[in-house]
């Protein structure tokens, strides 16, 4: 099993306060890893370390080792822009740009320097198909992306990320703002694309984690309590707090 991202002893501080207490978590290639845990357990914070989105928050210090394909993510030599092209991200709230559907997906390609119109068109179509939203938008590619439903917007956002062909996609509770039908569509599409991408998904929804992920990591109070194959973790958790959480004893 090849790991795309490996992390070791990750600690994150807001000012003097330590919020992540030494986390070791690896993301195997072309697998879906789910990060579960109650609110405030640090799973989203950890996820946002992986594409350095926490750099944008003032007062945050991060220590520990992060490696993407063996290269240090936090090295001064790392180009953050290049890093984020390899590590895409989908957010909790659908946040398409206020452009047409086509432009939303094509914009990143153009900025990446692709000029060939035909190639851009092909990529837009492929990405929208992979994101399982093509049939719903193919006749309205020139409509503003914000005129679609929340679930469709979220899939357009996923297509936008897929188009720039990242290695790993971070998803920060991508379905928690959506209705169950839309959430189901996104789960299905993740299962469809998992042989091409490595996916890390933060979710509150344990059923979702058990349905789609290969591996699950359970976070609690800024610590990684337990990690393992999803089946094993759900059926026979090693830690009592994992078992408590899975059985709804708190949270």
């Amino acid at each position, binding site marked *: 099993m090849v790991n795309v991202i490996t992390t070791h002893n990750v600690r994150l501080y807001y000012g003097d306060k330590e919020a992540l207490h030494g986390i070791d978590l690896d993301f195997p290639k072309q697998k879906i890893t789910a990060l579960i845990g109650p609110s405030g357990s640090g799973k989203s914070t950890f996820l946002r370390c992986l*594409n350095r*989105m926490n750099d*944008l928050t*003032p007062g945050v210090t991060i220590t520990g080792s992060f490696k993407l394909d063996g290269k240090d993510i936090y090295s001064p030599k790392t180009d953050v*822009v*290049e*890093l*984020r*092209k*390899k590590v*895409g*991200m989908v*957010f909790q*709230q659908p*946040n*398409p*740009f*206020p*452009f*047409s559907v086509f*432009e939303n997906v094509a*914009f*990143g390609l153009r*900025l*990446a320097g692709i000029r060939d119109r035909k190639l851009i068109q092909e990529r837009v179509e492929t990405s929208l198909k992979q994101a399982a939203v093509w049939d719903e938008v193919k006749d309205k590619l*020139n*409509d*503003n992306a*914000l*005129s679609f439903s929340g679930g469709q917007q979220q899939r357009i*956002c996923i297509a*936008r*990320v897929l188009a*720039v062909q990242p290695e790993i996609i971070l998803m920060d509770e991508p379905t928690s703002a959506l209705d169950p039908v839309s959430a189901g569509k996104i789960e299905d599409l993740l299962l469809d694309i998992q042989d091409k991408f490595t996916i890390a998904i933060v979710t509150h929804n344990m059923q979702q984690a058990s349905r789609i992920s290969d591996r699950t990591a359970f976070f609690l109070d800024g610590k990684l309590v337990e990690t393992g194959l999803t089946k094993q973790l759900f059926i026979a958790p090693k830690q009592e707090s994992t078992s408590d959480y899975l059985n709804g004893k708190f949270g």
Partner: protein
Amino acid sequence: MNAKKIDKLATAIIGFLVGVVVLILVALIGYILVTGLPHVSWHFLTSPSQSFLKGGGIGDQLFNSLYLLVLTLLISFPIALGAGIYLFEYAPQNWVTSTIRVAIEVLSSLPSVVVGLFGFLLFVIEFKLGFSILSGAIALTFFNLPLLTRSVENSLASVPKLQREAGLALGFSRWQTVLGVIFPEALPGILTAIILSAGRIFGEAAALIYTAGQSAPILNFSNWNPLSPTSPLNPMRPAETLAVHIWKINSEGIMPDASAVSAGASAVLILAVLIFNFSARWLGNRIYRKVTASK
């Protein structure tokens, strides 16, 4: 009183206050237009002004006002845009930026006469620019910059943070995110800022009396060489604007039809501001729609 009644009462009071505002506005504009428009004719709009005789026009002053507006926006908009983007998107929030913000606010509350006298001492005398459109435009830039910068900053602030994160997370550089995502979204707000400041520039008199001057040398509208003193495009010539002209006629005008010229000029001033507002809005909406594909 129950909540329902209080709600009705509050609605009535708010409605009344809005009515007062609208009434004042309509009365003012109506009065100016009704008294002024009968004096406006093609001849009035295109011929030069007269100092002693009746029948003078406002052609040169009207052109001066428009030219000054364009020149001032050409200088102040890029600066305000850059400053606004820097302050909101790039600058760390510390004592330096908060000092800059306080300075901007102080600058915006300076009386325009003070700005005019400052411009007179610094640009007209010290920098030897003389009474000129350029001096006027720079003085107006000082006058205009604070509010414009502030409005640009506010328009950028109204774009949700999620949009920035979306851009950055896709591997856009900060500049690409600002230019490609944030700026188009902030465009309507920025446009409103330009329109509001244009109205202020167009109507400004006090700051211009000491900088752009009170004389309107006869312009030759067939001479488009910007270096020639009679060319309308020459930025180094003194230029009385419409607002200054109105002020001057009313304080020391000795032409027999002074009140008619003043009324006509005021009506033209208001119409020009309205036309500028609507066309800028129309143009901005078109650009915005083109960028965002919204209907």
